[in-house]
């Protein structure tokens, strides 16, 4: 197993955001994490990424415990993140934003091929390469966030609500891109408000409620589950 999370606890001050969370991600699979607002999805991603420090539990990356590692060391392992709210650098140019993604040791030598790949994936970014990233539209900023992450040569990418706040036409494009990346061999953890779509895409899925995993199974199993259908699909 590529990534294995074991009984993870996380606190924001006194408030517990993750409670005994365990999950596994196989290489080259898509894992969806489903949950209501405030369930702890972002907290989980950020704890794996090393920007939050867990109180207890283990995060095993190919068997090595990386819980509590600083984020730059975690990124160096090949764990990338397309964060909630995109988190691009608004005053840097589009090109510079992409370059910041390639400052990892693992990615430095492959900078040029990765840049070509990203610009082929998102031709819009090539047109706007000298523009300040803050002037891009929401959809373009999301493309930039994905492109910047790919510049770091990740083997696992955690997407946190990549379609949030985007126009419906762009949402489809974004999800097609993620499906494409997954079929090219990228391992994907996907948090997506569009639950039906993300479960269809997922090999495995987990439902998070109040910081706890309450349900897990294959994407198809959860799509058919009555509780999921009622709570998240409105059926």
């Amino acid at each position, binding site marked *: 197993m590529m990534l294995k999370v074991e009984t993870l606890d996380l606190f924001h001050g006194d408030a517990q955001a993750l409670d005994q969370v365990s999950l596994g991600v196989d290489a080259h699979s898509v894992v969806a994490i489903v949950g209501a607002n405030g369930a702890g999805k972002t907290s989980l991603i950020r704890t794996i990424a090393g920007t939050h420090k867990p109180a207890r539990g283990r995060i095993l990356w190919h068997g090595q415990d990386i819980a509590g590692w600083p984020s*730059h060391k975690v990124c160096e392992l090949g764990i990338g993140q397309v*964060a909630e709210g995109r*988190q691009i*650098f608004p005053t*840097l140019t589009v090109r510079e934003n992409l*370059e*910041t*993604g390639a400052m990892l040791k693992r990615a430095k030598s492959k900078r040029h091929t990765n840049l070509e790949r990203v610009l082929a994936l998102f031709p819009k970014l090539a047109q706007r390469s000298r523009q300040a990233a803050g002037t891009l539209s929401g959809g373009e900023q999301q493309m930039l966030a994905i492109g910047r992450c790919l510049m770091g040569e990740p083997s696992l990418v955690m997407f946190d609500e990549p379609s949030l706040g985007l126009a419906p036409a762009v949402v489809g494009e974004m999800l097609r891109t993620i499906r494409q990346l997954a079929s090219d061999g990228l391992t994907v953890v996907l948090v997506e408000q569009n639950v039906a779509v993300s479960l269809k895409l997922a090999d495995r899925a987990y439902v998070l409620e109040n910081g706890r995993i309450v349900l897990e199974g294959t994407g198809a199993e959860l799509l058919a589950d009555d509780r999921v259908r009622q709570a998240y699909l409105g059926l």
Partner: protein
Amino acid sequence: MPFDFYVTVAVQGVLTGLVYGLMALGLSVIFGVVRVVNFAHGEFAVVAMYLAFLGFAMFGLDPILAMLPIGLGFFGLGYLLQRHLINPFVGRPEHEQFILLVGLAIVLVNGLLMLFGPDTRHANLPYGFDSYEVANVLIDKVRVYAAAAALVVAALLFAFFRWSRTGMAIRACADNLLGAAIVGLDVKHLYALTFGLGMACVGAAGALMVVLADATPMLAPAFTLLAFTIVIVGGMGSMAGALVGGILIGVSEAFASFLVAPSAKSMFSFAILIAILALRPQGLLGRKQ
């Protein structure tokens, strides 16, 4: 009063102002990225002045050359200070940072007083009284050298931030800290580098200052205040603003001490500060929040 006199005063003010600007640039860079206000800024400048003075008194080392080793040493000192002393305070309430840095300032000034006493020290450069005469305007040679050196250091810093990868990474941290952590930038290291660069500016400026003013520990609080005034006038976080602000304050000081009295030289500077705060609070080249 002949017109040439005014031109002379203005030129001297611009030249001094560039050195002030370099000092303020250090403060501005540190605040713009690390978001820590270096309340010991002027104190560090005076430490650098004493080092340059000692280099000159003991080895005859020209302060304008001493700027290089002092700047380098201050870079290392700044890196270590940020990494080990200040970093734990990043993100903590402002009054805690304030107490830490003011405490540091007090230690530095009193350390200087213990070592050197309160007397002023003057570096008597062999070319200290030489001057250039350009169309009836007399310009001190030392000021020209010091200003040129300050400009070179500032230009190198601009180029570093604009074109180097590390400079780009530091700008990214200033832009979006969470974003920087997400792409895997080592934020603590970059913060320490930034603090080191800011300190290198103060170190270099302090060394150059020895040719413009006599060293005494009592200058330290005045320099801290001066750097603050310049950064606020020029615009918080704007590198060009620090230089422009430095020149403006340098010229205003020159005219105030010439037209009123040397002891009143800060008078115009504070008037400018108040005017800026009232009319353009983001500073001349600062961006609106």
